[in-house]
């Protein structure tokens, strides 16, 4: 005779082995959002309040990027805003494009554009050398 426990949980479904991606994406949005508020506020004050955007020139940017500190600041702003924005758009697309094919096309388009901007921005930040 089959040995059954006190309660037969036959209707219980086997655990679903899903990835942690959505969990981490959700957590990332909260943490990156917090950092972005600080970074974007800093960026705005430096570029628009303490300095006048009309007077920003090559010299100003080059002087900033002489220190690895400002390069890191700008790279963090770039990386977090692109990742945060891309994930937000991914969520919007998942919610609003019900056709699977169109959704895949939109998502891959988004990933391509985001990666291109990210690679381009990172390249400029790393490879920039001041020309005297």
């Amino acid at each position, binding site marked *: 005779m089959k040995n059954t426990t006190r309660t037969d949980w036959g209707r219980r479904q086997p655990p679903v082995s899903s990835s942690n991606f*959505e*969990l981490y994406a959700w957590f990332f949005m909260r943490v990156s959002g917090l950092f972005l508020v600080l970074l974007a506020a800093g960026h705005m004050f430096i570029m628009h309040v303490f300095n006048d955007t009309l007077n920003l020139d090559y010299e100003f940017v080059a002087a900033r990027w002489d220190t690895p500190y400002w390069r890191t600041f700008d790279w963090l702003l770039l990386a977090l805003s692109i990742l945060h924005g891309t994930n937000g758009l991914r969520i919007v697309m998942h919610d609003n494009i019900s056709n699977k094919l169109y959704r895949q096309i939109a998502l891959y388009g988004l990933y391509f554009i985001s990666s291109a901007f990210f690679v381009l921005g990172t390249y400029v930040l790393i490879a920039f050398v001041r020309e005297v």
Partner: protein
Amino acid sequence: MDIKLNILRYNPETDRKGHWEEYLLNADPDERILDLLHKVKWFDDGSLAFRRSCAHGVCGSDAMLVNGENMLACQVLVKEVSNPIKIEPIRGLPVIKDLVVNMDSFFDSYKKVMPYLVNEEEPGERERLQSPEDRDRFEDTTKCILCAACTTSCPVFWTADTYVGPAAIVNAHRFVFDSRDNASKQRLEILKDVNGAFRCRTAFNCTTACPRGIQVTKAIEDVKRETLTIN
């Protein structure tokens, strides 16, 4: 008082899509929306289809969209809504006839989160004891009557029928935070899927819609945070 009642009617045998029908009634301001539907069905048009069982806000059969908001027809008085009154079936589920929708997918999502106590240890001499503090942890979510007012008010559920919906997460919450239960991890594994708790965008429609006053969005956020702690 004179009431103008507009009901979104649909008969699968004759209609290709739903159409509005107007009913002029005389009703007391203290009568319920459900009483108006009874008046139509009993004295005017017997073909009107809607669900109701206990008629006292306990069974959760008569959730419907009244003037654009999900509510139980048996719980809302005529004087509490503006006249003319528009009544539609709850959204996001296939309409069978008039105000009756097919709730199979709703209950499938509900069953998916294992909404029952799982504990295979011997309970001991008497029942499994629990402190009042431990009981309070999930007090709010024990109130769910599965009327689907929350799930069918959720904008994510309207477009993505694969989303388990607020009601399923509320019922997972009921057992995830129960100190006597041993299957929290399994439930959270199910809910961390792309169509699980993280599909919630905190629109708060569910919290507004719940006829039992459950803090639905808060319960979903509780589940999200708990998922973070087990990983």
